[in-house]
Protein backbone atom coordinates (compact mmCIF):
# COMPACT_ATOMS: atom_id res chain seq x y z
CA UNK A 1 0.00 0.00 0.00
CA UNK A 2 2.80 2.35 1.05
CA UNK A 3 4.85 1.31 -2.02
CA UNK A 4 1.95 2.00 -4.38
CA UNK A 5 1.49 5.39 -2.78
CA UNK A 6 5.18 6.22 -3.28
CA UNK A 7 5.02 5.04 -6.91
CA UNK A 8 2.01 7.20 -7.51
CA UNK A 9 3.75 10.16 -5.87
CA UNK A 10 6.85 9.71 -8.03
CA UNK A 11 4.75 9.45 -11.17
CA UNK A 12 2.86 12.60 -10.25
CA UNK A 13 6.08 14.49 -9.57
CA UNK A 14 7.60 13.27 -12.83
CA UNK A 15 4.52 14.43 -14.73
CA UNK A 16 4.79 17.80 -13.02
CA UNK A 17 8.45 18.03 -14.04
CA UNK A 18 7.64 17.25 -17.67
CA UNK A 19 4.86 19.80 -17.54
CA UNK A 20 7.22 22.39 -16.08
CA UNK A 21 9.88 21.81 -18.73
CA UNK A 22 7.21 21.84 -21.42
CA UNK A 23 5.86 25.15 -20.16
CA UNK A 24 9.33 26.64 -20.04
CA UNK A 25 10.02 25.57 -23.59
CA UNK A 26 6.72 26.88 -24.82
CA UNK A 27 7.59 30.28 -23.36
CA UNK A 28 10.59 30.46 -25.64
CA UNK A 29 10.38 31.23 -29.32
CA UNK A 30 10.71 28.12 -31.38
CA UNK A 31 11.95 28.77 -34.88
CA UNK A 32 10.85 26.40 -37.56
CA UNK A 33 13.09 26.39 -40.61
CA UNK A 34 11.29 27.91 -43.56
CA UNK A 35 10.92 25.73 -46.61
CA UNK A 36 12.02 27.40 -49.80
CA UNK A 37 9.37 27.06 -52.47
CA UNK A 38 10.87 26.73 -55.91
CA UNK A 39 8.63 28.17 -58.56
CA UNK A 40 9.18 26.67 -61.97
CA UNK A 41 7.22 29.52 -63.54
CA UNK A 42 9.49 32.22 -62.20
CA UNK A 43 9.68 35.24 -64.45
CA UNK A 44 12.73 35.83 -66.57
CA UNK A 45 13.45 38.95 -68.48
CA UNK A 46 12.37 39.21 -72.05
CA UNK A 47 14.51 41.83 -73.74
CA UNK A 48 11.76 42.71 -76.18
CA UNK A 49 9.27 43.66 -73.50
CA UNK A 50 10.03 46.53 -71.14
CA UNK A 51 7.86 45.10 -68.35
CA UNK A 52 7.72 41.33 -68.89
CA UNK A 53 7.54 40.53 -65.23
CA UNK A 54 4.76 42.88 -64.23
CA UNK A 55 2.29 40.08 -63.76
CA UNK A 56 0.28 41.93 -61.15
CA UNK A 57 -2.06 44.64 -62.39
CA UNK A 58 -1.30 48.20 -61.22
CA UNK A 59 -2.14 48.97 -57.61
CA UNK A 60 -4.78 51.63 -56.85
CA UNK A 61 -3.74 55.27 -57.24
CA UNK A 62 -5.85 56.42 -54.31
CA UNK A 63 -3.97 57.23 -51.11
CA UNK A 64 -3.85 54.16 -48.91
CA UNK A 65 -2.24 50.77 -48.49
CA UNK A 66 -3.09 47.60 -50.36
CA UNK A 67 -2.22 43.95 -50.82
CA UNK A 68 -2.60 41.64 -53.79
CA UNK A 69 -2.77 37.99 -54.67
CA UNK A 70 -4.04 36.55 -57.95
CA UNK A 71 -7.01 35.21 -55.99
CA UNK A 72 -8.04 38.41 -54.21
CA UNK A 73 -6.86 41.10 -56.60
CA UNK A 74 -5.93 44.41 -54.95
CA UNK A 75 -7.63 44.85 -51.59
CA UNK A 76 -7.17 47.53 -48.90
CA UNK A 77 -4.65 46.90 -46.15
CA UNK A 78 -3.84 48.81 -42.99
CA UNK A 79 -1.01 51.32 -43.29
CA UNK A 80 1.41 51.13 -40.38
CA UNK A 81 0.38 53.38 -37.49
CA UNK A 82 2.48 56.17 -36.00
CA UNK A 83 3.75 54.07 -33.09
CA UNK A 84 5.20 51.52 -35.51
CA UNK A 85 6.62 54.08 -37.95
CA UNK A 86 8.61 55.66 -35.14
CA UNK A 87 10.41 52.34 -34.59
CA UNK A 88 11.56 51.89 -38.19
CA UNK A 89 15.03 53.22 -38.92
CA UNK A 90 15.46 54.98 -42.24
CA UNK A 91 17.32 53.88 -45.33
CA UNK A 92 20.03 56.39 -44.61
CA UNK A 93 21.45 58.86 -47.05
CA UNK A 94 25.15 59.33 -47.51
CA UNK A 95 27.49 56.53 -48.33
CA UNK A 96 30.52 55.82 -50.43
CA UNK A 97 29.09 52.60 -51.79
CA UNK A 98 28.16 52.91 -55.43
CA UNK A 99 24.82 51.58 -56.67
CA UNK A 100 24.12 51.29 -60.37
CA UNK A 101 21.35 53.32 -61.91
CA UNK A 102 20.01 54.86 -65.07
CA UNK A 103 19.88 58.61 -65.73
CA UNK A 104 18.10 60.75 -68.28
CA UNK A 105 18.29 64.49 -68.95
CA UNK A 106 14.62 65.37 -68.61
CA UNK A 107 12.93 65.81 -65.22
CA UNK A 108 9.61 64.32 -66.20
CA UNK A 109 9.99 60.72 -65.12
CA UNK A 110 7.04 59.06 -63.44
CA UNK A 111 8.05 55.42 -63.15
CA UNK A 112 11.07 53.55 -61.86
CA UNK A 113 11.71 50.02 -60.77
CA UNK A 114 14.31 47.74 -59.25
CA UNK A 115 14.01 44.11 -60.28
CA UNK A 116 15.95 41.36 -58.49
CA UNK A 117 16.32 37.79 -59.70
CA UNK A 118 18.60 35.29 -57.96
CA UNK A 119 20.28 32.64 -60.02
CA UNK A 120 22.33 31.29 -57.12
CA UNK A 121 21.88 31.93 -53.41
CA UNK A 122 23.76 30.54 -50.43
CA UNK A 123 22.59 32.70 -47.53
CA UNK A 124 22.65 36.29 -46.33
CA UNK A 125 23.44 38.07 -43.08
CA UNK A 126 22.90 41.76 -42.44
CA UNK A 127 25.78 43.47 -40.66
CA UNK A 128 23.40 44.93 -38.06
CA UNK A 129 20.48 42.55 -37.78
CA UNK A 130 21.78 39.15 -38.74
CA UNK A 131 20.22 36.47 -40.90
CA UNK A 132 17.79 37.30 -43.71
CA UNK A 133 17.62 41.05 -43.08
CA UNK A 134 17.89 43.13 -46.25
CA UNK A 135 16.22 45.76 -48.40
CA UNK A 136 15.46 46.24 -52.06
CA UNK A 137 15.61 49.92 -52.86
CA UNK A 138 14.59 52.14 -55.73
CA UNK A 139 16.09 55.57 -55.17
CA UNK A 140 15.51 58.75 -57.13
CA UNK A 141 17.93 61.59 -57.73
CA UNK A 142 18.18 64.32 -55.12
CA UNK A 143 16.51 67.59 -56.05
CA UNK A 144 16.40 71.10 -54.63
CA UNK A 145 13.31 73.17 -53.94
CA UNK A 146 13.36 76.49 -52.08
CA UNK A 147 16.92 75.88 -50.95
CA UNK A 148 16.17 72.49 -49.42
CA UNK A 149 17.47 69.23 -50.86
CA UNK A 150 14.99 66.39 -51.11
CA UNK A 151 15.04 62.74 -52.15
CA UNK A 152 12.51 59.93 -52.54
CA UNK A 153 12.92 56.24 -51.78
CA UNK A 154 10.70 53.33 -52.67
CA UNK A 155 11.69 50.15 -50.87
CA UNK A 156 10.96 46.89 -49.11
CA UNK A 157 12.94 46.15 -45.97
CA UNK A 158 12.78 43.09 -43.76
CA UNK A 159 14.31 41.53 -40.69
CA UNK A 160 14.10 37.81 -40.06
CA UNK A 161 11.67 36.92 -37.30
CA UNK A 162 10.47 40.50 -37.39
CA UNK A 163 8.76 42.45 -40.08
CA UNK A 164 8.66 42.98 -43.82
CA UNK A 165 7.73 46.58 -44.63
CA UNK A 166 6.96 48.12 -47.99
CA UNK A 167 7.43 51.89 -47.87
CA UNK A 168 7.61 55.18 -49.72
CA UNK A 169 9.87 57.65 -47.97
CA UNK A 170 10.03 61.38 -48.69
CA UNK A 171 13.36 62.63 -47.43
CA UNK A 172 14.39 66.14 -46.41
CA UNK A 173 18.12 65.65 -46.85
CA UNK A 174 19.00 69.15 -45.67
CA UNK A 175 17.43 68.70 -42.25
CA UNK A 176 17.84 64.93 -41.97
CA UNK A 177 14.15 63.98 -41.88
CA UNK A 178 12.71 60.78 -43.31
CA UNK A 179 8.96 60.61 -43.65
CA UNK A 180 7.84 57.09 -44.57
CA UNK A 181 4.43 55.58 -45.18
CA UNK A 182 4.50 51.80 -44.98
CA UNK A 183 2.45 48.64 -45.10
CA UNK A 184 3.31 45.22 -43.69
CA UNK A 185 4.29 42.62 -46.26
CA UNK A 186 5.10 38.96 -45.72
CA UNK A 187 8.55 37.78 -44.70
CA UNK A 188 10.45 36.53 -47.71
CA UNK A 189 12.87 33.63 -47.81
CA UNK A 190 15.44 34.21 -50.51
CA UNK A 191 16.47 31.18 -52.54
CA UNK A 192 18.19 30.13 -55.76
CA UNK A 193 15.39 31.33 -58.01
CA UNK A 194 13.82 34.06 -55.90
CA UNK A 195 12.53 37.02 -57.90
CA UNK A 196 10.83 40.23 -56.89
CA UNK A 197 10.61 43.89 -57.74
CA UNK A 198 9.97 47.30 -56.22
CA UNK A 199 8.33 49.97 -58.34
CA UNK A 200 7.99 53.70 -57.78
CA UNK A 201 5.40 55.82 -59.53
CA UNK A 202 4.04 59.33 -59.64
CA UNK A 203 0.36 58.74 -60.25
CA UNK A 204 -1.85 60.76 -62.59
CA UNK A 205 -3.25 62.44 -59.49
CA UNK A 206 0.24 63.45 -58.32
CA UNK A 207 0.67 60.92 -55.53
CA UNK A 208 3.68 58.68 -54.91
CA UNK A 209 3.08 54.96 -55.17
CA UNK A 210 5.31 51.99 -54.48
CA UNK A 211 4.62 48.34 -55.10
CA UNK A 212 6.61 45.32 -54.02
CA UNK A 213 5.86 41.98 -55.66
CA UNK A 214 7.49 38.64 -54.96
CA UNK A 215 7.20 35.39 -56.85
CA UNK A 216 5.66 32.87 -56.90
CA UNK A 217 2.25 34.38 -57.20
CA UNK A 218 3.07 37.13 -57.31
CA UNK A 219 2.11 38.37 -53.89
CA UNK A 220 2.22 42.16 -53.78
CA UNK A 221 1.88 45.04 -51.38
CA UNK A 222 1.47 48.69 -52.29
CA UNK A 223 1.43 52.13 -50.70
CA UNK A 224 0.08 55.32 -52.26
CA UNK A 225 0.80 58.57 -50.44
CA UNK A 226 1.00 62.30 -51.06
CA UNK A 227 4.03 63.74 -52.85
CA UNK A 228 5.14 65.46 -49.66
CA UNK A 229 8.27 67.13 -51.02
CA UNK A 230 7.36 67.55 -54.66
CA UNK A 231 9.20 64.84 -56.57
CA UNK A 232 6.92 65.41 -59.54
CA UNK A 233 8.78 67.45 -62.15
CA UNK A 234 12.18 66.73 -60.57
CA UNK A 235 12.69 63.00 -61.25
CA UNK A 236 15.38 62.06 -63.73
CA UNK A 237 17.32 59.15 -62.21
CA UNK A 238 16.66 55.70 -60.74
CA UNK A 239 19.14 53.52 -58.92
CA UNK A 240 18.93 50.49 -56.69
CA UNK A 241 19.54 46.84 -55.94
CA UNK A 242 19.36 44.50 -52.94
CA UNK A 243 21.20 46.07 -50.00
CA UNK A 244 21.47 46.05 -46.21
CA UNK A 245 18.39 46.30 -44.00
CA UNK A 246 18.64 49.97 -42.96
CA UNK A 247 20.80 52.44 -41.08
CA UNK A 248 23.78 52.04 -43.45
CA UNK A 249 24.03 48.30 -42.84
CA UNK A 250 25.54 45.81 -45.28
CA UNK A 251 23.85 42.77 -46.81
CA UNK A 252 26.56 40.11 -46.58
CA UNK A 253 25.85 37.32 -49.03
CA UNK A 254 27.45 33.93 -48.57
CA UNK A 255 29.43 32.71 -51.56
CA UNK A 256 28.40 31.62 -54.09
CA UNK A 257 25.72 34.18 -54.86
CA UNK A 258 24.70 35.26 -58.33
CA UNK A 259 21.93 37.82 -58.72
CA UNK A 260 20.59 39.91 -61.57
CA UNK A 261 19.58 43.52 -60.91
CA UNK A 262 17.61 45.59 -63.42
CA UNK A 263 16.74 49.24 -62.85
CA UNK A 264 14.01 50.86 -64.94
CA UNK A 265 13.23 54.50 -65.69
CA UNK A 266 10.41 55.89 -67.81
CA UNK A 267 9.25 57.66 -69.82
CA UNK A 268 12.59 57.95 -71.57
CA UNK A 269 13.93 57.30 -75.02
CA UNK A 270 17.59 57.84 -74.22
CA UNK A 271 19.55 57.40 -71.04
CA UNK A 272 22.88 56.28 -69.70
CA UNK A 273 24.03 54.15 -66.84
CA UNK A 274 25.66 55.78 -63.83
CA UNK A 275 26.88 54.98 -60.34
CA UNK A 276 24.88 56.54 -57.53
CA UNK A 277 26.32 57.31 -54.10
CA UNK A 278 23.16 58.47 -52.38
CA UNK A 279 22.07 55.60 -50.16
CA UNK A 280 24.05 54.46 -47.15
CA UNK A 281 23.19 50.75 -47.33
CA UNK A 282 25.56 48.35 -49.05
CA UNK A 283 26.13 44.75 -50.06
CA UNK A 284 29.29 42.65 -50.34
CA UNK A 285 28.76 41.58 -53.95
CA UNK A 286 30.91 42.47 -56.90
CA UNK A 287 28.80 44.19 -59.51
CA UNK A 288 29.60 43.15 -63.05
CA UNK A 289 29.49 45.33 -66.12
CA UNK A 290 26.15 47.04 -66.52
CA UNK A 291 24.24 47.04 -69.77
CA UNK A 292 22.08 50.08 -70.51
CA UNK A 293 19.49 50.55 -73.22
CA UNK A 294 16.06 51.92 -74.07
CA UNK A 295 13.04 50.32 -75.62
CA UNK A 296 9.45 51.49 -76.08
CA UNK A 297 9.85 54.56 -73.89
CA UNK A 298 11.58 52.77 -71.03
CA UNK A 299 15.29 52.74 -70.28
CA UNK A 300 17.00 50.06 -68.22
CA UNK A 301 20.38 49.23 -66.85
CA UNK A 302 21.11 45.68 -65.76
CA UNK A 303 24.02 43.79 -64.28
CA UNK A 304 24.92 40.55 -62.54
CA UNK A 305 26.45 40.64 -59.08
CA UNK A 306 28.50 37.76 -57.71
CA UNK A 307 30.93 36.84 -54.97
Amino acid at each position, binding site marked *: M*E*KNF*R*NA*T*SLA*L*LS*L*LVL*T*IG*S*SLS*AMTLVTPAVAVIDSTKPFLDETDPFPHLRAPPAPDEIGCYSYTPETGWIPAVCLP*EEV*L*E*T*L*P*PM*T*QGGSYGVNGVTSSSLTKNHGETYINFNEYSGETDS*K*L*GINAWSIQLNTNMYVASGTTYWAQFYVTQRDGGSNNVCVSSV*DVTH*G*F*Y*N*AVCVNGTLQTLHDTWAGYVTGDITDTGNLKTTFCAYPGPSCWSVTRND*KYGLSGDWKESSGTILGWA*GSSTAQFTSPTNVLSVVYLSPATSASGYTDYTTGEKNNLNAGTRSTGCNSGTCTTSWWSTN
Partner: protein
Amino acid sequence: MTAVNSIMISRTTLVIGSSSLIILSLSILVLFFTTGTQAYATSIPVFRPLDHVYNLTIDNQTNSIRYGFSPDSNNTAVVKSMSADYDSKSIRVIIDDNSTTTEKRFFIVELPRKVIDANTTAIAGGCTASPTSGDSWVREHDLEYVIVVSRVDSEGDVAVYDGSISEECGRDARVLSIEYLGGRSTIVIQGTTMIPEFSLSLSALVLTLAMLGVIGASLAVRHRAISV
Protein backbone atom coordinates in the same frame (compact mmCIF):
# COMPACT_ATOMS: atom_id res chain seq x y z
CA MET B 1 35.69 59.04 -16.68
CA THR B 2 36.59 59.03 -20.32
CA ALA B 3 33.56 61.01 -21.31
CA VAL B 4 34.07 63.51 -18.51
CA ASN B 5 37.60 64.01 -19.73
CA SER B 6 36.44 64.51 -23.25
CA ILE B 7 33.89 67.11 -22.20
CA MET B 8 36.50 69.04 -20.27
CA ILE B 9 38.95 68.91 -23.13
CA SER B 10 36.31 69.97 -25.61
CA ARG B 11 35.48 73.01 -23.54
CA THR B 12 39.12 73.86 -23.20
CA THR B 13 39.43 74.08 -26.96
CA LEU B 14 37.08 77.04 -26.93
CA VAL B 15 39.35 78.94 -24.58
CA ILE B 16 42.77 78.14 -25.95
CA GLY B 17 42.31 78.86 -29.62
CA SER B 18 45.88 78.35 -30.82
CA SER B 19 46.18 74.94 -29.17
CA SER B 20 42.75 73.72 -30.16
CA LEU B 21 43.94 71.41 -32.89
CA ILE B 22 46.42 69.65 -30.61
CA ILE B 23 43.87 69.32 -27.82
CA LEU B 24 41.26 68.06 -30.26
CA SER B 25 43.66 65.36 -31.40
CA LEU B 26 44.38 64.47 -27.77
CA SER B 27 40.70 64.22 -26.97
CA ILE B 28 40.17 61.86 -29.88
CA LEU B 29 43.10 59.76 -28.69
CA VAL B 30 41.65 59.68 -25.17
CA LEU B 31 38.33 58.51 -26.55
CA PHE B 32 39.77 55.68 -28.56
CA PHE B 33 42.40 54.35 -26.21
CA THR B 34 40.81 54.51 -22.80
CA THR B 35 39.36 51.33 -21.29
CA GLY B 36 36.08 50.10 -22.72
CA THR B 37 35.26 53.06 -24.86
CA GLN B 38 34.09 52.76 -28.42
CA ALA B 39 32.81 55.60 -30.56
CA TYR B 40 30.82 54.90 -33.71
CA ALA B 41 30.29 58.48 -34.78
CA THR B 42 32.93 60.70 -36.30
CA SER B 43 32.21 63.74 -34.13
CA ILE B 44 33.40 63.88 -30.54
CA PRO B 45 30.76 62.07 -28.51
CA VAL B 46 29.50 63.27 -25.14
CA PHE B 47 28.58 60.60 -22.59
CA ARG B 48 27.90 62.73 -19.52
CA PRO B 49 26.11 63.95 -17.50
CA LEU B 50 24.10 61.02 -16.16
CA ASP B 51 22.54 63.12 -13.45
CA HIS B 52 18.92 61.92 -13.61
CA VAL B 53 17.35 58.56 -12.80
CA TYR B 54 14.19 57.08 -14.29
CA ASN B 55 12.59 54.11 -12.58
CA LEU B 56 11.68 51.95 -15.54
CA THR B 57 9.20 49.20 -14.82
CA ILE B 58 9.59 45.95 -16.73
CA ASP B 59 7.49 42.96 -15.76
CA ASN B 60 6.64 44.54 -12.38
CA GLN B 61 10.32 45.08 -11.61
CA THR B 62 11.73 48.57 -11.19
CA ASN B 63 15.03 49.26 -12.89
CA SER B 64 16.96 52.46 -12.31
CA ILE B 65 18.06 53.98 -15.60
CA ARG B 66 20.53 56.87 -15.38
CA TYR B 67 20.27 59.57 -18.04
CA GLY B 68 21.07 63.20 -18.77
CA PHE B 69 21.07 65.89 -21.43
CA SER B 70 23.81 67.88 -23.08
CA PRO B 71 23.62 70.81 -23.18
CA ASP B 72 21.05 71.39 -20.47
CA SER B 73 22.13 74.51 -18.65
CA ASN B 74 18.55 75.52 -17.79
CA ASN B 75 16.99 72.10 -17.22
CA THR B 76 14.71 72.70 -20.18
CA ALA B 77 14.88 69.11 -21.37
CA VAL B 78 12.77 66.54 -19.55
CA VAL B 79 11.92 62.88 -20.03
CA LYS B 80 8.13 62.81 -20.21
CA SER B 81 8.00 59.03 -20.16
CA MET B 82 10.12 55.93 -20.55
CA SER B 83 8.50 52.58 -21.23
CA ALA B 84 9.63 49.11 -22.18
CA ASP B 85 8.14 46.69 -24.66
CA TYR B 86 9.27 43.16 -23.97
CA ASP B 87 7.99 41.72 -27.26
CA SER B 88 10.14 44.03 -29.37
CA LYS B 89 12.92 44.24 -26.72
CA SER B 90 12.74 48.01 -26.91
CA ILE B 91 12.63 51.05 -24.69
CA ARG B 92 10.62 54.09 -25.80
CA VAL B 93 11.57 57.49 -24.45
CA ILE B 94 9.59 60.69 -24.96
CA ILE B 95 11.50 63.92 -24.47
CA ASP B 96 10.26 67.48 -24.26
CA ASP B 97 12.91 70.13 -24.86
CA ASN B 98 11.72 73.69 -25.12
CA SER B 99 15.11 75.39 -25.08
CA THR B 100 16.05 77.70 -27.93
CA THR B 101 19.64 76.54 -28.15
CA THR B 102 21.20 76.28 -31.57
CA GLU B 103 23.68 73.65 -30.35
CA LYS B 104 23.19 69.99 -31.12
CA ARG B 105 21.19 68.32 -28.35
CA PHE B 106 22.11 64.93 -26.96
CA PHE B 107 20.15 62.54 -24.78
CA ILE B 108 22.57 60.41 -22.81
CA VAL B 109 21.36 57.18 -21.29
CA GLU B 110 23.09 54.35 -19.45
CA LEU B 111 21.58 50.97 -20.25
CA PRO B 112 22.54 48.15 -17.87
CA ARG B 113 23.18 45.04 -19.93
CA LYS B 114 20.98 43.04 -17.58
CA VAL B 115 18.04 45.32 -18.46
CA ILE B 116 18.48 45.54 -22.23
CA ASP B 117 21.31 44.38 -24.44
CA ALA B 118 21.99 43.77 -28.10
CA ASN B 119 24.21 40.89 -29.00
CA THR B 120 24.69 37.85 -31.19
CA THR B 121 26.48 34.54 -30.99
CA ALA B 122 29.04 35.73 -33.52
CA ILE B 123 32.01 37.97 -32.82
CA ALA B 124 30.52 41.29 -33.77
CA GLY B 125 32.61 44.02 -32.23
CA GLY B 126 31.88 45.41 -28.79
CA CYS B 127 34.75 45.94 -26.43
CA THR B 128 37.18 44.33 -24.03
CA ALA B 129 38.97 45.47 -20.91
CA SER B 130 42.17 47.37 -21.50
CA PRO B 131 45.23 45.15 -21.03
CA THR B 132 46.65 47.76 -18.65
CA SER B 133 43.55 48.06 -16.50
CA GLY B 134 44.20 44.96 -14.44
CA ASP B 135 40.65 43.90 -15.15
CA SER B 136 39.56 41.09 -17.42
CA TRP B 137 36.33 41.02 -19.38
CA VAL B 138 35.18 40.61 -22.95
CA ARG B 139 32.06 41.88 -24.69
CA GLU B 140 32.82 40.94 -28.27
CA HIS B 141 29.35 39.74 -29.20
CA ASP B 142 27.75 43.17 -29.04
CA LEU B 143 25.51 44.35 -31.81
CA GLU B 144 24.61 48.00 -32.11
CA TYR B 145 21.22 48.87 -30.67
CA VAL B 146 18.69 49.84 -33.31
CA ILE B 147 17.90 53.45 -32.42
CA VAL B 148 15.23 55.58 -34.06
CA VAL B 149 14.69 59.25 -33.23
CA SER B 150 11.50 60.84 -34.50
CA ARG B 151 9.00 63.62 -34.03
CA VAL B 152 5.70 64.56 -35.54
CA ASP B 153 6.14 67.32 -38.12
CA SER B 154 3.88 70.29 -38.79
CA GLU B 155 1.75 68.20 -41.15
CA GLY B 156 1.15 65.51 -38.55
CA ASP B 157 3.52 63.00 -40.16
CA VAL B 158 6.13 60.98 -38.30
CA ALA B 159 9.52 62.33 -39.33
CA VAL B 160 12.46 60.10 -38.45
CA TYR B 161 15.61 62.09 -37.74
CA ASP B 162 18.99 60.85 -38.94
CA GLY B 163 21.24 62.33 -36.27
CA SER B 164 24.46 61.38 -34.56
CA ILE B 165 24.54 58.31 -32.29
CA SER B 166 27.55 57.17 -30.26
CA GLU B 167 28.19 54.48 -27.69
CA GLU B 168 30.47 54.06 -24.70
CA CYS B 169 30.81 50.32 -24.30
CA GLY B 170 31.25 48.92 -20.80
CA ARG B 171 31.30 45.57 -19.07
CA ASP B 172 27.99 45.91 -17.27
CA ALA B 173 26.37 48.83 -19.05
CA ARG B 174 26.35 50.61 -22.39
CA VAL B 175 26.05 54.38 -22.52
CA LEU B 176 24.39 55.91 -25.57
CA SER B 177 24.65 59.50 -26.72
CA ILE B 178 21.74 60.20 -29.06
CA GLU B 179 21.20 63.43 -30.95
CA TYR B 180 17.62 64.66 -30.84
CA LEU B 181 15.66 67.76 -31.75
CA GLY B 182 13.85 70.53 -29.96
CA GLY B 183 10.19 70.17 -29.07
CA ARG B 184 8.82 66.70 -28.46
CA SER B 185 10.98 63.81 -29.66
CA THR B 186 10.50 60.08 -29.41
CA ILE B 187 13.51 57.80 -29.11
CA VAL B 188 13.12 54.05 -29.53
CA ILE B 189 16.07 51.88 -28.50
CA GLN B 190 15.78 48.28 -29.57
CA GLY B 191 18.00 45.43 -28.41
CA THR B 192 17.92 41.66 -28.60
CA THR B 193 17.46 40.74 -24.93
CA MET B 194 15.43 42.28 -22.12
CA ILE B 195 15.30 41.57 -18.41
CA PRO B 196 12.23 39.29 -18.09
CA GLU B 197 13.93 36.97 -20.53
CA PHE B 198 16.73 36.42 -18.05
CA SER B 199 14.43 36.12 -15.05
CA LEU B 200 12.17 33.70 -16.93
CA SER B 201 15.10 31.45 -17.77
CA LEU B 202 16.41 31.64 -14.22
CA SER B 203 13.07 30.88 -12.62
CA ALA B 204 12.53 27.95 -14.99
CA LEU B 205 15.97 26.61 -14.10
CA VAL B 206 15.38 26.97 -10.36
CA LEU B 207 11.98 25.30 -10.62
CA THR B 208 13.40 22.44 -12.67
CA LEU B 209 16.25 21.87 -10.19
CA ALA B 210 13.80 21.94 -7.30
CA MET B 211 11.59 19.37 -9.00
CA LEU B 212 14.58 17.14 -9.70
CA GLY B 213 15.51 17.39 -6.03
CA VAL B 214 12.02 16.38 -4.93
CA ILE B 215 11.98 13.43 -7.33
CA GLY B 216 15.44 12.37 -6.20
CA ALA B 217 14.36 12.48 -2.57
CA SER B 218 11.20 10.54 -3.38
CA LEU B 219 13.14 7.84 -5.18
CA ALA B 220 15.59 7.61 -2.30
CA VAL B 221 12.73 7.16 0.17
CA ARG B 222 11.21 4.50 -2.09
CA HIS B 223 14.54 2.67 -2.40
CA ARG B 224 14.96 2.78 1.36
CA ALA B 225 11.44 1.42 1.92
CA ILE B 226 12.04 -1.46 -0.51
CA SER B 227 15.34 -2.29 1.21
CA VAL B 228 13.65 -2.36 4.59
